[in-house]
């Protein structure tokens, strides 16, 4: 009997390939859809806050961050994730309307204090704009905003004119930025 179990032991020892992992020298191979630390594409995030709303543990907070796209993300608010609470459930990733939040293969998180494992947008962003690009985009945004304002003002004027023309119609409100 003992021999039999030893036979199996030997068989396993001889046929099974290496079992012990060489972590941390060699990380095990992770599958493609591993749910590890988040990766944020700051160039496309629109700052809608869907991810923050769906998170079951309220670990996402929207914080200001510079290197995003001011054209799409007017208030420049990006998610910051508290890994002390995150359960890596992936709901935030599913919920993101522009698919800019993903989960990557990095899984190691460590910090001396709790605040060290609160990752701001700068730490989870894998794609962001450089300072120069941001400045350009900002200028662009400003220009667009100005145009919009002008357009809005024009529209308002037109409306006002129309309203004056048709006095029987009740107060026409200038619709700010509506058509722009």
């Amino acid at each position: 009997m003992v021999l039999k179990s030893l036979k199996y032991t030997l068989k396993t020892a001889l046929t099974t390939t290496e079992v012990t992992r060489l972590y941390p020298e060699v990380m095990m191979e992770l599958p493609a859809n591993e749910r590890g630390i988040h990766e944020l594409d700051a160039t496309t995030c629109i700052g809608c806050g869907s991810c923050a709303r769906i998170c079951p543990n309220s670990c996402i907070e929207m914080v200001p961050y510079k290197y995003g796209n001011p054209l799409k993300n007017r208030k420049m608010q990006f998610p910051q994730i508290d890994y002390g609470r995150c359960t890596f459930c992936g709901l935030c990733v599913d919920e993101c309307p522009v698919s800019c939040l993903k989960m990557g293969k990095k899984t190691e998180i460590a910090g001396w204090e709790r605040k060290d494992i609160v990752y701001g947008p700068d730490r989870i962003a894998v794609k962001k704009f450089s300072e120069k690009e941001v400045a350009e985009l900002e200028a662009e945004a400003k220009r667009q905003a100005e145009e919009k304002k002008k357009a809005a003002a024009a529209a308002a004027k037109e409306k006002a004119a129309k309203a004056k023309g048709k006095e029987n119609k009740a107060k026409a409100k200038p619709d700010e930025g509506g058509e722009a």
Partner: protein
Amino acid sequence: MSAIQSAFPGAVLESRVESDRRLWITVDPKRLVEITQFLRDKKDFDHYSGAAGVDRINENLFEVVEILTSHGAHQVVVLMKVKVPRDKPSVRSLTGLYWNANWYEREIWEMFGINFEGHPELYPLLLPDELVGYWPWRKDFKGYPDTTTGERAIEQVGPDGYTEFKIMPHTELIKAGVLPERPKYPTFREREEAEIKSDSEMIMHMGPQHAIVPGPFLLDLLIEGERVKKAFLDVGYIHKGIEKIMENRTYLQGIVYTDRMCYLASITNNEAYCGAVERLLGITPPERAQYIRVILAELSRIQSHLLGTGEFLTLLGAATYSPFQYMIIDREDIVYLMESITGARITHTFVRFGGVRNDLPDGFADKARPILKRMRERTEEYMDLLHSDPIYTRRMRGIGVLSPGDARRLGVSGPPLRASDTPYDMRREDPILVYPDLDFKVVTRKAGDAEARVEVRLEEILESIHIIEQCLDQIPDGPIQEKLPKKIKPEPGEAYYRVEDPRGEMGIYVVSDGSEKPYRVKVRGPVYAYMQALPPLLEGAYVADVVAIAGSMDACTSEVDR
């Protein structure tokens, strides 16, 4: 249904036949016991599957839902409701009819304050003594300490210098009759005094921290010499209040919490919850998604059985051929397969309402087949090994025998029940997903002892492999997600959904009130039922066999306490 109506005219207040497997009836509280007895004796409802309380605060009512089914005689699940007024809630206890109603009623009592007339031992099960009387599952529960009045715990420095924080019991409230006199769980000293009758007896602790236990629970054994005379079990050390948390989360967020009830069965827990919500929403997932869910459920069964068996063998001291390490090595392959689908190793959060989170990765079948083949060889190897090991057989054969009758009476399910010659498997009894299209057999054993339970588990691994292989052959192409409304808001209603967990019958009961959040979620877990059956099973056993018996149940305290 009509049989009940004709036998008890006027007692059935409301009824609804949801399908040929679900029957909802509301009965007169006064005649509950009679009707239940009729169902048990005349209609073969011999399995008491659980009970849930619901606080209908708007109607000023409490509901108690008793879930009755049969061990194979037919497949109808009766959900029998009784409604009692909120100010003096009291229901007749069913413990006289079904032995295992005990814990379910105790839990409802401590959570809702619904009294059960005729219950033998109404003291807290999951909650600490000082929380009794706050009735935390009621909808008007304000938090503990009361978040609205800001009442805080009082700091007390004991004689030994330790500081304790205590909420003072409301003596005035008890006197005024608002809160009941709190029946206390006996302390160790009290129990010693009450139970020890002679010099040859003593009480031995196993747990809350003990090498045999899969999580913290207390097993006090009253022993005389080498024999266990009586066993006392106390659970609730890791009560997390998941049911209440889920009431405060949206439907979608609730999936995350079902994972955490038992990490070895997270897929099946997901499945049970999503299935119940799907019934509420009235959707069925597309076929491909159903196949993916079956594949994952079976993979999770394999890994759970491997871990459970391996751990158990280590407890028995099977060190010569170290089966635990082997099983962990094999389990790693299975976990890797699951990880390649879901992206997480144990807490998957993968099943969605009407579908799954993502599709199978490319080349999954090619990767899975060799692993499953190897797994089959290894499992056969284990079976051969264990079978031919005289020490193991002597240790296990005839230990902790559950006769079929007892097993049914105690309300256990899953492998322990099937090891007692009762082919009761939710995949057959209450078929879900594509299980009816698949070919598998329900593994049973006659003996009902610890050895049979392990054998059933190992053979179920083979069956699961067989199921997965069929799925891989048959899986169609197509969508994996049914169209869902933007906001998940089921119509007011309720649903009960059962799946076969690796450990047995897992049922989730969801009540919706038409809002974004579930009104009530009740989890009926398989391990809860095992745990309840443990003390009678241990009586008369040798102390050395306690490990063999308790371990062969493959318990998971986290799910008991939720």
